[in-house]
């Protein structure tokens, strides 16, 4: 079956198995997280636990390169009918935060394990300090809910009642968890049946060699893509607005090294592990799927025929030093790692943008903000907790079209809820739901516009959470002369005397009559905006997507009664200054980097790397506290000296080095 003439037949059967699993889970799950948000994955894996097929229409996009191998090995003696599980981010490095519960099941053929079916669901709550188990303010994994290291959940078809009892006792919505877990077990059973059908169709040897060929084929496709990318070293950094409640930026740094048909992603220079739950637990696996998600998008964009399986990860090696935000050591909290992951993706997009500028878009908005309302419904007398629409989007300008408005790129899997449904079920009234003018980065191809949503509430002490809010300080970047996009914003009572700008906050408390307005960032622009056809700019103005002032200021297009004034436009465009440099970041990042230069960060990284892990975030915070009036590497050194003077207990780098020897 490794015959290339018939490989596509096996690939289709494998995908059908995965799609079947996804539909079974989606159809039978209980919680809104699984049914609506589709925060789940399913996969079919080979003997080693490497994923070889995923669904293409349902579920999240994160795990086609996931391997369960490490978790599988932590349990002995699998029998037919067994299902194992874990949700512990620090055992086996399959789960990446506590709500994500992963299950796997062996597929036997004549007494031998020939494949595995697996998948995850995001449980609504796993217990711990806060409802839903997620808050940026948490600082250690133990606050983030109950953890199960890899263990058997089902023994030869029978659920372990003790495990279920423990879970029921410790979580806030036990029925949802148990219902979803049973639905996932059903999906694994479906997958097992489909794999058995493949074994009957292709034979044991044909199946095994065919699956190996699928991984080889994906690897070959990935290598072909890499070969077409010029060899070289491409460096890029990007920042999340706030690293914790201390509100300093969180920097992710990548050096992408392309060598022939392989690549190295070196994340050295990224922040130390944080005293918040923004850490990404990769376990230092050089091919951990959570580090690779941005790569999947890049590869698939460069070749939409790409087979998505673990084969595509083989040409890549990630370096994420221990004790950093991308490889934290226990017990660092990890619940809100999805915010960091969004930034991680934009760092990868930025590096590839330099390597293949002609084939990559500008930055997408990169803030996949999920909004929840907790309020009181006067009509029913009940307390209500409900998800309102995600506020996302704006894709980056593409090589030959504008960025997608209000969604697109790495946010395309998120769905909204109809306003009519929300208003019927939740006591809120929408004031606006649409696109925000002048928020897409200007460019030959404009960035996608931001989403803007505003709603009024009616009950006192209505609590809003807007998880994953970001990009209120650092803009999605433009490329090749295109400009950075508009910033995200959260305002209470906009346009009134008591308007309150909420900065990067992700929670708010509202009183009766208050209006909360949320805006995402836009997508970055691509190419010189002065080269955008004037008629297109005029159309943008007619469509309310670009203002007449911005048409003039950003695009050099002068309109008279809605029509292009050709002469005035030509004159204005002739005088326009082109932005030099591959990226355009906007004034906020330029100002920040004037102080926090590359050299400053190199110095900071050196200082922190030399410290024991538990000191690093503390020292980072104290150095930031002392950077007022200081600049660059020398500024960092001076701030560090001052920190050491204030905290003489900080271990001296030499001392720690000697102690280690």
């Amino acid at each position, binding site marked *: 079956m490794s015959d*290339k*003439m*018939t*490989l*596509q*037949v096996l690939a*289709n059967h494998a995908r*059908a198995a995965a*799609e*079947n699993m996804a*539909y079974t889970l989606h*159809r*039978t799950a209980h919680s*809104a997280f699984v*049914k609506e948000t589709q925060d789940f994955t399913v996969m079919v894996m080979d003997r080693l636990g490497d994923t070889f097929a995923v669904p*293409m*229409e349902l579920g999240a*996009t994160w795990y086609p390169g996931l391997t369960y191998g490490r978790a599988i090995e932590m349990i002995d003696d699998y029998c037919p009918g067994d299902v194992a599980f874990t949700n512990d981010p620090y055992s086996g490095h399959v789960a990446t935060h506590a709500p994500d519960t992963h299950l796997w099941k062996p597929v036997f053929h004549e007494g031998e394990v020939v494949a595995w079916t697996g998948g995850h669901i995001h449980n609504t709550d796993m217990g711990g300090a806060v409802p839903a188990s997620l808050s940026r303010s948490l600082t250690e994994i133990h606050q983030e809910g109950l953890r199960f290291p890899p263990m058997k959940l089902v023994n030869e078809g029978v659920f372990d009642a003790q495990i279920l009892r423990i879970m029921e006792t410790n979580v806030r919505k036990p029925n949802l968890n148990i219902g979803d877990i049973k639905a996932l077990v*059903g999906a694994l059973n479906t997958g097992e049946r*489909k794999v058995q059908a493949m074994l009957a169709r292709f034979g044991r040897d044909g199946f095994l060699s065919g699956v190996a060929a699928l991984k080889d*084929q994906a690897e070959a*496709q990935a290598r*072909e893509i890499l070969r077409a990318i010029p060899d070289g070293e491409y460096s890029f950094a990007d920042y999340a607005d706030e690293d914790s409640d201390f509100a300093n930026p969180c920097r992710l740094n990548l050096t992408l090294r392309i060598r022939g048909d392989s690549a190295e992603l070196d994340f050295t220079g990224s922040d130390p592990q944080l005293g918040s739950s923004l850490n990404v637990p990769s376990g230092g696996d050089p091919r951990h799927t959570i580090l690779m998600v941005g790569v*999947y*998008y*890049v590869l*698939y*964009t460069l070749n*939409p025929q790409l087979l998505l399986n673990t084969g595509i990860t083989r040409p890549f090696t990630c370096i994420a030093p221990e004790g950093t935000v991308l490889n934290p050591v226990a017990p660092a909290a990890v619940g809100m790692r999805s915010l960091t992951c969004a930034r991680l993706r934009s760092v990868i*997009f930025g590096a590839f943008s330099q390597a293949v500028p002609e084939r990559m*878009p500008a930055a997408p908005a990169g803030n996949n903000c999920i909004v929840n309302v907790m309020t009181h419904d006067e009509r029913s007398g009940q307390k209500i907790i409900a998800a309102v629409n*995600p506020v*996302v989007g704006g*894709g980056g300008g*593409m090589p030959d*079209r504008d960025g*997608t*408005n*209000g*969604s*697109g790129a*790495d946010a*395309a*899997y*998120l*769905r*909204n809820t*109809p*306003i*009519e449904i929300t*208003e019927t079920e939740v006591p809120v009234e*929408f004031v*606006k*739901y*649409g*696109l925000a003018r002048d928020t897409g980065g200007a460019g030959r191809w404009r960035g996608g516009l931001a989403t803007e949503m505003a709603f009024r509430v009616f009950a006192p002490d209505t609590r809003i959470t807007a998880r994953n809010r970001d990009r209120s300080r650092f803009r999605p970047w433009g490329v090749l002369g295109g400009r950075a996009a508009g910033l995200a914003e959260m305002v209470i009572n906009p346009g009134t005397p008591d308007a309150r700008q909420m900065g990067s906050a992700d929670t708010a408390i509202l009183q009766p009559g208050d209006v909360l307005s949320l805006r995402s960032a836009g997508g970055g622009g691509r190419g010189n905006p002065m080269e955008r056809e004037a008629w297109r700019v005029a*159309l943008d103005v007619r*469509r*309310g*997507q670009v203002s007449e002032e911005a048409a003039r200021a950003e695009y050099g297009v002068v309109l008279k009664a809605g029509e292009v004034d050709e002469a005035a436009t030509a004159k204005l465009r002739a005088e326009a200054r082109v932005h030099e440099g591959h990226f355009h970041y906007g004034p906020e990042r330029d100002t920040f980097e004037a102080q926090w230069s590359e050299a400053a960060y190199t110095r900071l990284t050196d200082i922190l790397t030399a410290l024991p892990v538990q000191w690093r975030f503390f020292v980072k915070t104290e150095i930031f506290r002392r950077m007022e009036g200081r600049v660059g590497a020398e500024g960092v050194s001076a701030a560090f000296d001052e920190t050491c003077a204030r905290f003489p207990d900080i271990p001296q780098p030499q001392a720690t080095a000697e102690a280690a020897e």
Partner: protein
Amino acid sequence: MDGICAPADWKVGVDIGGTFMDFCALDTTSGRIASLKVLTTPDDPGAELLTGLDLLTEREGLDPACVTRFVHGTTVGINTILQRKGAKLALVTNEGFEDVIELARLAMPDMYSLFCHRAEPLVPRDRIFGVPARLRADGSEPLAPTPEAVREAVVQARGVGVEGIVVSFLHSWRNGAQETAVKAMIEAEAPDLFVFTSSEVWPVIREYERSSTTILNGYVHPRVAGYLEALENRLAGRGVPTKALLTKSNGGLMSAFEGRRDCVSMLLSGTASGVIGAAWLARQAGASQVLTLDIGGTSADFALIVDGEVQYGADERIGDFPLYIPSVSVSSIAIGGGSIASVDGHGVLRVGPESAGSTPGPACYGRGGTEPTVTDAMAVCGWLGQAEMAYGQLQIDRDLARAAVASLAEPMGRSVEETAEAILNIAVSEMFVEVEKLGSRAGVDLRDFTLMPFGGGGPMMGAFLARELGMSRVLAPRRPGVVSALGGLVADMRGDFLQTVFAGLDDSAVPQLRAAFDALRREGQAWLVAQGHDGAAQIRLSADMRYAGQSYEIETPLEPDWLSDPARMAAAFHGTHRQIYDFEDQNGAIEIVNLRLSAIGLTPKPDMAQESAVEAAPAVPARQVRVHLNGTRDIPLFERANLVPGAAFHGPAVVCQEDTTLAVPDGAAAHVDRHLNIHLEFAE
């Protein structure tokens, strides 16, 4: 009918596809059925109709004056959308919500691509006009639109030259009066523009889906109305005395006159009536669990018939846009006879998504196509080209097919025949993925089903797909090319009506439900009268219900007297929920979102001639032909016209007929029933 027609009473079903217009004419006095295919005339839609009627007169002795029923299925609406040749529309909606159409439901296909994007909306943003206005979810109106604001929108819409205006306001599912008032203001200002409101087209909750459905209606309205008017004139000109009927997306019929305004109801006209026709044939043949497979040039359509019933859904897609009205559920995949095979940079053979379509079409059609298609692979393997096709209107040139497939075989270092077989295997496996998904979505085990292939390409690939799916039965109808046209002849009049109630299911909801039911029943009865239906009628009642907190409703059939008994309705919902989702929540609060009613005007079912059963006897092949199926071999070819009831044979074999070829794989036991269907059974 008058005395002249005493010896004949013709019922004519006509369905138009991409390449052919199919005719199915039934003489009810004799039970004789005649079928015909005529090439379409894309430059003059409707002209092929007269050609077909002339041919029926010539060949079958049809007298247009004796046609007592004329049912038409047409793609004019859907093609208008796919080709984007519809009306220039404006949308008037709430200020602050002008982008609802563009944002849609946010999520989009191809979610792994950084270049994913949405289709350009049918109404671009510069023709969407926001008016200050607001309804609340309870139907109250805190802010009424002013005539001045509406007038301003109309002036601007006129300024950009629109032909019609679509009106869609938030919460008009609950209270249509606001839209009706705006419509009146627009009509006063611009009597020359047509206007549709979302609450009159389909008053369902969910602003994007309702608006999209209304836009689709307005977008196709001028072309559909023009086409239908011309159709009625042509028929009248030929002396056809009966009023034309149209097949609808819901599998029922309406008058062509109704279709001029209710355009959105006939967008899936032909595909839906295909499933209706298939269900009728299946019932005759005694099959109750059926997977239908209709393969055309560019796509394959699949549908499930469960316990003898066609399945309905409310969120079909037309091209890039949701159509949120009740429709026969049909899944589609872009693999058909015209799908092109290619070899990628790694030497892996693929099929599709590119298609040679009907122009230039497969290489073997000799119309200038050179790329190897699925149909060419069929010809190379010997399944095609053994006999005349499409009533003599197509010649298969197997040399051209070989040359096209050879262009792939050479670089792969394989024989032309091996390559052709591989192409067919891959095409079947592409369909396998989609059908497996359909089965899984519906929660059924396809191994319990019978596959019924129809359309031009269905019978060629159907049995192979059945094997891939582990299905052991195939049912090949006698006239697979005219199943959709036949579907029109056996369909009932059917109008669907909906009121969104959105209430908790308890005693307090009863008055509201009773009132809604009475209103729906009146609407339904009035609709049947308007269609000119004077025969027996039925009403079917159902409700879209869900557990509080869910956001997908499921349709639960109800009896009218249950409306006074919430416990009875709850029991029905729990049962339906368990059936679909494998669990129920006896303690869960239930919401009733929509009450729905279908008014069904029963039409007399044709009484087709059938042979009385005869003794089983081995069929006699016309000759042996050479095919490539796991190697080259000679297998028997049967002429379908000579296969009488009781005839039996074994695969591999090929069965030729005017409009298609049935490929019978190894291991199949075939027999012909008294309706002339061929049944294939595979031993497990």
